[in-house]
Every structure is written in structure tokens, then in C-alpha cells.
């Protein structure tokens, strides 16, 4: 077997050194009743070529985004990732290394994490960021728990514009931690009153910006309202590219910013792995979950980097840890930081402008669809389209797919219990959409409604 170097002669020689008759002897501590004498009844190993065939066959059953006019967003966005990112990512020294516990031979990982933390802090407008978490939804849940820890309060208010997966994940994570979740109704029209929900029992208010239905909100007053009663404002960002164009949460008073980093560096990957970004104010750093990289000096006085403040972590504090998370999303963070390094200030700004311009163009194109109306008053690169009172957006999506068009997501996929949301279609546009894509969508919508 190509991954296993031992020959039978090697094995015999090693067993002789050990003083064991055969390998089975080494498994003597396994209760006899549980020892299998034969391989489990599943297929035998296959060559590379055969395995490639299996995956090629499965891939052939999918319609990949690049082969269709594609307008799906809803928290994950399709952007063009420069070729250099993936090629550098696969360098064995990055790909096959472990968590940098031995800093002397891990300065590569540590330095990019330090750079990553800085970039995340910069784009969110915050002071510090951690070295990444699983994804945006789990980062959001961690923010809720952290806010409760910081404020010693129990009520978590979730905006109706927060991504439903973030809502659900936060509900699950907090379920047995003595917290009280107040999740507001979905809010595609932007009517919700958040100010009224914040009171002295509130640990935090969690809002998304741009919202799940697209809207961009000025959070300054909300932040003030939170701070007045001793609550924290947590802002979730599902589309980090937006931060190249719109005012960052940090500048509007956010105390914690969580985000999904997938937009940069990673591609869609059917939604996983993601990359949770987590940033906060310096004063809360010791309450922040997740791994942190810090600057220090070596024995010779040279600048170097190490994992630090690990006293917050579970392998030191065990049941008192800030969270049970013991990995980050290292490679995803690397992809993110590499893409953002290529973009830089100039590139991120332009990319964000281009995305917004594409969405504006899409909205304009959709004016040619009778009865349909963009209901998001403000948006970055995604908005909610109301298709008409009797139209089921989910059916429209299926009709479009039958024509080879991946034309957004129906709101009802997330909110099956809200009949009033049935006519709503979420549509995203990015730099990857051509004018032909938009024309194809408009024409198919006209046929399909």
C-alpha cells in the first residue's frame, strides 16, 4: 500500500526487537470479544486512478457554480481566488504542520497568524482579533457566551436580520449554559425595533451587517443604547468583502465583531470548512475565546512569535476554560490572509466597490421582471427580491435550476414556518457575474413567473 512503508521483513524485524510473536499480540489488551480477526466487511483499498474515477463520477452529478449563471449568497459568497493562494497553501511546510506548539520551528505559521490577526482587526475596525474559529456561526455563539461572561448577564438578543444558521447555532451552544435567548422574527423589510429589546438584563445584542436580507444599518445608536445599560453590541459580518466599502462595526461602537471569512481565499466548498473571524476590544482580550498569537523575542533578542495567553484555554483551565475549542482553522486563515495580502487596501476597496456596482446593476436588470421588486432599501452585494404575492420563490428556484441557472435562495428554505416570506428570493452578485449571467437570469425569471 502506497502510504505504508513497511515490508513484511521490516515488520518481522521490529517484532523481534519488541519480542512479540505477531502484531496481534500487541493488541492483547483489547478484550477478546471485541478483537476482529479479519478486515471489516467493507471494500478493499484502491489505486489512485480508481479513487479518482469515483470522485469524478460523483462530481459529475453536481452542477458546479462556475458552470451556471450563479447568484446564491445567503452568507457565503462566490469570489475569484487568485491562483497564487492555493498553490502556496499546498506547500507541505504549511499543509502538513501541526498547531505551532514548538515556536522555534513554526515561525511561518505564527507570523502569518500574527498578520492575520492584524488584518482582521483592521478590516473590522477593532483592536484585537484571535487566530480564527470554526466558522461565522460558531464564532457568533462564542460571542454570546463571552458577552455573558463579560457582563455577568444572561439575556442574549438576536436580531431578525441575523443569519438563521447563526441564530440556530447560538441557540444550541447556549442551551445549557444558563442563558436566555431572545430571537426576533425574520425582518426582510427592516421594521424591527432593536432598541426596545435592550435592557438591564441584556448581556448583548447581536446584529448582522449587512443583514441577512441585505440591509446595511448604522449601528451607532444601537451601540450607545447597549452601552448605556451595560450590554455589549455584537456585530456579525457574513460578507467580509463589504468591509472594503462600508463603515466597519468597530467604527460604529461594536464590542465584538464575528464574521465568516470564507469569502476570501477559500471558495465555496459546499459550505465547509469555514473560517470564523473574531475581534474585540483590547480590554476584553482575556475573555476572548480561541487561540492567540503574540509577539515576543527569542534568546538572542530577535523578534519572534508564540501562541500566548493560553491560560484562557481548556488544556490549562479544563472545565473553567473560555470554550472547549482547541483547534482553529489554520489553513483557512492562511488562505484568507494570503488573499487579503494580495488585495491590500487598494484591492479590497476596489473589489468591494465592484461587488456593490454589480449588485446595483443586477437590481437594475431586475426592473425588467414585471411584478418583482427589490425590497432591501440598502444593500451591499445581496438583496431580497419580492417576486409577487402568489409566487413561491422555492418553486422559482427549482425552475431556474432546471434551466441551468443557480438563481438565488428562497427565504422559505430557512424559514419554512413563515408563509409571508414565501415570495422572497435572496440574490447576490459578485465580481464573478458577467452581464450575460444577469441577462440569463432576467429572461428565465420572466419565463418562470
Amino acid at each position, binding site marked *: 500500500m502506497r*502510504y*505504508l512503508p*513497511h515490508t513484511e521483513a521490516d*515488520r518481522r524485524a521490529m*517484532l523481534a526487537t*519488541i519480542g512479540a510473536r505477531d*502484531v496481534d499480540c500487541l493488541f492483547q489488551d483489547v478484550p477478546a470479544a471485541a478483537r*476482529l480477526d479479519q478486515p471489516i*466487511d*467493507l471494500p478493499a483499498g484502491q489505486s*489512485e486512478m*480508481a*479513487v*479518482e474515477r469515483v*470522485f469524478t463520477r*460523483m462530481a459529475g452529478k*453536481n452542477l458546479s457554480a462556475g458552470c451556471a449563471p450563479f447568484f446564491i449568497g445567503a452568507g*457565503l459568497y462566490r469570489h475569484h481566488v487568485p491562483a497564487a493562494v492555493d498553490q502556496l497553501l499546498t506547500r507541505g511546510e*504549511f499543509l*502538513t*504542520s501541526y498547531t505551532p*506548539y514548538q515556536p*522555534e*520551528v513554526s515561525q*511561518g505559521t505564527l507570523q502569518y497568524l500574527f498578520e492575520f*490577526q492584524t488584518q482582521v482587526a483592521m478590516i473590522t475596525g477593532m483592536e484585537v482579533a484571535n487566530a480564527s474559529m470554526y*466558522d461565522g*456561526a*460558531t464564532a457568533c455563539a462564542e460571542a454570546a457566551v463571552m458577552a455573558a461572561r463579560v457582563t455577568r448577564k444572561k439575556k442574549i438578543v438576536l436580531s431578525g436580520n441575523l443569519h438563521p*444558521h447563526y441564530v*440556530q*447555532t447560538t441557540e444550541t451552544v447556549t*442551551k445549557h*449554559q444558563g442563558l436566555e435567548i431572545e430571537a426576533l422574527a425574520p425582518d426582510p423589510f427592516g421594521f424591527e425595533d432593536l432598541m426596545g429589546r435592550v435592557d438591564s438584563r441584556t448581556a448583548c445584542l447581536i446584529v448582522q451587517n449587512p443583514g441577512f436580507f441585505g440591509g446595511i*444599518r448604522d449601528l451607532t445608536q444601537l451601540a450607545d443604547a447597549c452601552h448605556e445599560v451595560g450590554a455589549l453590541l455584537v456585530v456579525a459580518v457574513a460578507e467580509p468583502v463589504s468591509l*472594503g*466599502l462600508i463603515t466597519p462595526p468597530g*467604527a460604529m461602537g461594536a464590542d465584538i465583531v464575528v464574521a465568516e471569512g470564507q469569502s476570501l481565499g477559500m*471558495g465555496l466548498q*459546499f459550505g*465547509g*470548512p469555514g473560517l470564523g473571524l473574531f475581534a474585540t476590544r483590547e480590554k476584553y482580550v482575556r475573555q476572548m475565546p480561541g487561540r492567540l498569537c503574540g*509577539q515576543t523575542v*527569542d*534568546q538572542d533578542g530577535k523578534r*519572534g512569535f*508564540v501562541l500566548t495567553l493560553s491560560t484562557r484555554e*481548556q488544556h490549562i483551565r*479544563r*472545565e473553567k476554560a473560555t470554550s472547549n475549542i482547541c*483547534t482553529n482553522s489554520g489553513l483557512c486563515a492562511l488562505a484568507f490572509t494570503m488573499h487579503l*495580502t*494580495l*488585495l491590500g*487596501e*487598494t*484591492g479590497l476597496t476596489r473589489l468591494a466597490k465592484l461587488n456593490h*456596482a454589480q449588485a446595483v446593476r443586477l*437590481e437594475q436588470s431586475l426592473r425588467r421582471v414585471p411584478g418583482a421588486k427589490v425590497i432591501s432599501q440598502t*444593500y451591499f452585494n445581496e438583496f431580497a427580491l419580492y417576486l409577487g404575492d402568489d409566487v413561491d420563490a422555492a418553486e422559482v428556484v427549482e425552475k431556474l435550476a432546471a434551466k441551468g441557472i443557480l438563481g438565488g435562495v428562497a427565504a422559505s428554505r430557512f424559514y419554512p414556518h413563515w408563509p409571508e416570506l414565501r415570495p422572497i428570493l435572496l440574490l447576490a452578485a459578485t465580481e464573478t457575474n458577467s452581464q450575460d449571467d444577469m441577462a440569463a437570469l432576467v429572461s428565465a425569471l420572466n419565463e418562470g413567473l
Partner: protein
Amino acid sequence: LEEPLIFEQGCPGRIGVDIADPGPVDEDRLGGLARQGAIGLPDLSEPQMVRHYTRLSQKNYGIDSGFYPLGSCTMKHNPRLSEKMARIPGLTDLHPFQPQSTVQGALEVIDLLAHWLKGLAGMPALAMSPAAGAHGEWCGLMAIRAYHDDHGDSRRTRVLVPESAHGTNPATAAMCGYSVDPVPANERGRVDVAALKAKLGPDVACIMVTNPNTCGLFEDEILEIARITHDAGAFFYCDGANYNAIVGRVKVADLGIDAMHINLHKTFSTPHGGGGPGAGPTVLSAKLAPYAPLPFVVHGTDGLELVEHAEQAPGAKPFGRVKGYHGQFGVFVRALAYILSMGADGLRQTSSDAVLNANYLLASLKDVLSASFDGPCMHECLFDDRFLKDSGVTTLDFAKMLIDEGFHPMTMYFPLVVHGALLMEPTESEAKETLDGFIAVIRALAAKAKNSEAEAFKAAPRLTPRRRLDETLAARQPILRWKHGANAEG
């Protein structure tokens, strides 16, 4: 060579990605919230970026660089085929919210991997979406708690965890609202069954046992442990971090386990990537199956179906959703490529060779190092620092000395149950020659240590991009980001 931070290399106006400036933005739709002021990101060209990350990578050590016997981390060969498969456009350029008719192949990947995991474990059900081992632990405990809650059994507030457990176990139990009660180890490095029995009772929700445990030993009384646990009405959660030692040779179900997470990045060799992403699917017994979290894949009339809401699956009582979207799909593809390459026969061989290698290290080193327990061990072997007594050399010094010899150190100071632990996990992908080279170096260093050459150890490593780093300074005066003028190169 020194490599400056990107923030020290940028120059405004450079660009690494060509993007047409779309001209002035129509701000009507931005609600007056266009960004004011600069972000502060540096501008680099593509050549600079490529060189930067190439140079950074050269300051790293990976499995591809050499032997990496980091105990409890399973640093085995990461096949390049898995990487290639994960980059097939039809498998990677897919959005999780595409209509299900357009992602039947992706659902098949999930379903086929689930089929293998259930078959290998002998368990009837699993949760695919946990993103890492600790996440899978939590998923397992949430399912257990959901079961108890669903059965109105609210007395169960305690979780029993052996002292040798990974730190995530108690943290996980705490996240589920449980108090944690430690169980001592016996002198053979295993759970003290009598002590466990004494702690079991109607208020225990479950036990969390790592098997093989963190000393690299199989819990040989595991059937008894399972029996008394079940007798007490509690569940048996197994931390599957060391599942790679027994995959293909032992079915988890046959050990009386009710739930166990499987670290795909360990047992099925997806890259560790400097700390993730991992994936921690969690196999579940029939009792726990209904409580598995959303989403999951079922076989429907029109092909595979992804269940995103509880009411789509009659009988399901999901405890919730553990993360966004449908699981670590990119990791699934890699793990499945590995599994199909290995097959049932190859997987059995991996655990056999992993255990063989660890026992070979143990047998070849036990006369010069101090083995904490008698063999046979499983996939890793544990030593403590008795052999360094009076030498002036610590476990840390000893490990750092190995770096200059071209090896990554073993795990140090874990597990906590022995003093100055050195935990070595050779993995099955290492050739005998590599182990022999490592053994020779360890033996030479042990002799050196005993020969009062502590100075050399204290000075190690000397051939690395950086020498020992001041971790105390880092923690006392945290510098967690670059700021203009504040991070001068030393």
C-alpha cells in the same frame, strides 16, 4: 534570513490582484454608510506576496520535512491525492444552498463517508457536522443530554472524566451544563474501575473515557466500564482522538460505547494545516440516534435528501444545529479519498503498523529513557523524566535538542498523570529506517544528558530560524497585532 511583516513591506498603490476600478460608487444603496478613512492594509504586488509566503513556509516544519512524533496528534502522511480530489471543480465550486437536485454528488460524498464511518465503528447512526474533535465531543454530550431531557431524567448533572483526559473533555461537559467529577487512574495507567463504580449513580449523565487513553494504553477493562456505566443508567462517551490505533481492528460498538467522535484529520489523514480545519463526525448508538443535530442526509424517493428542518424527518428530535451549513465538506472529500484508497484491509494495516511502530520505539528506548508503563502500548508510547534525574536537563530541554537533529519533538508534559511526560507517536507512515535514525539520536542524547552536558541542552535549539522564545514576556505584555511603529524587528 529575516522576513518582515507584510505591514512592513507594503507601498500604497501596488496591487496583487487586478480589479478594474468601477469608478465612483452610486452611494444611494449604502444608506450613508460608505467607509470613511483608510483601512490600513498594506499594498503588495504578487511577486512580493509569493516570496513572502514561500519564505514563511521555509520557517516551518511539517510532516513533509521530517519525522514528527508529536504524541496524541497523529502526524501521519497526508496523501496528495486527497488534495487533488478536494480541488475537482465539481466538488469544490458548490454552494451549500444550491437546489438539492444540483448537488446529488456532494450529498453522495457525505453519505458514502457516513456509510464507511458507521461500518467501521459498527454504529447505526452519526452526526456529520461537527467541525473538530472537541466539537464532536460536545455534539455527543448534547445528544446524551437531549436523551436524558427527553426522558425527563433531570437528576443527571454529573459527568465522570478520568484525570488523564484531554482538557477539552471537562470543558465540554461544562458547556453542556454538567459538573465534572474526576476519576483517578490506577497504577497501570488505566481508569480505576473500582473508583469509577463508586462514583457512578443516578445523577451521572455519562462518563467520558478516551480509549486508547492518553498514556497510549488500551482500557483493558472497557467492557466492565461500559457495563457498570449502563447499569447506572448513564451513557458511555468515548473520546475518539486515538481511534487511529484501533481502526479496522476493533468496532467501537463492540466496546459498549454509546457515542464517539472521530477526528477525520487524525485517523483519516486530512492535513493538520498549522491548526485546522479538522472535522469530528460523531457516531451514535441507536438510543442516541434520534437526537443527532441538523442537517443530515437521508435516502429519499428522488435521490439523496438533505434534512435541514426537524419536521422533514419523522421521528427525528435533533438537539439543534452545531455550526453553519452542512459540515466540513472539504475535509470529508479528503478523508473519503483516504478511506477509499486504504480500504478495509489497508485501514486495518494502518492501525497494526501504528501500534507496531510505537512498540518498536518503546522496546528500543526503554533501557535509556524511563518508560512510564509496561507495554504493549498502542499507537504511542509514554516516557517520563526520571531518566533525566539530577542531569540538570528538563523534558523541555531534551525536546528542544531534538530539533537541532532534524526531528520535530514529541509531546511534552502531557498527559499530566506522569512527571515530565514525553509522549511519542510515530504513526504508520514512518519507515523503519526513520525510526532507527530517531532511536539512535535519542540514545545519543540520553547518554549526553546523563553525561552532565546540560549546557548544550539549555542552549538548544541553535539551528532554527529562532532560538527559544520568551513566552512569559508574550503573556505579560501581550502584543497581538502590528501597529505602526510599535513592532520593531528585533
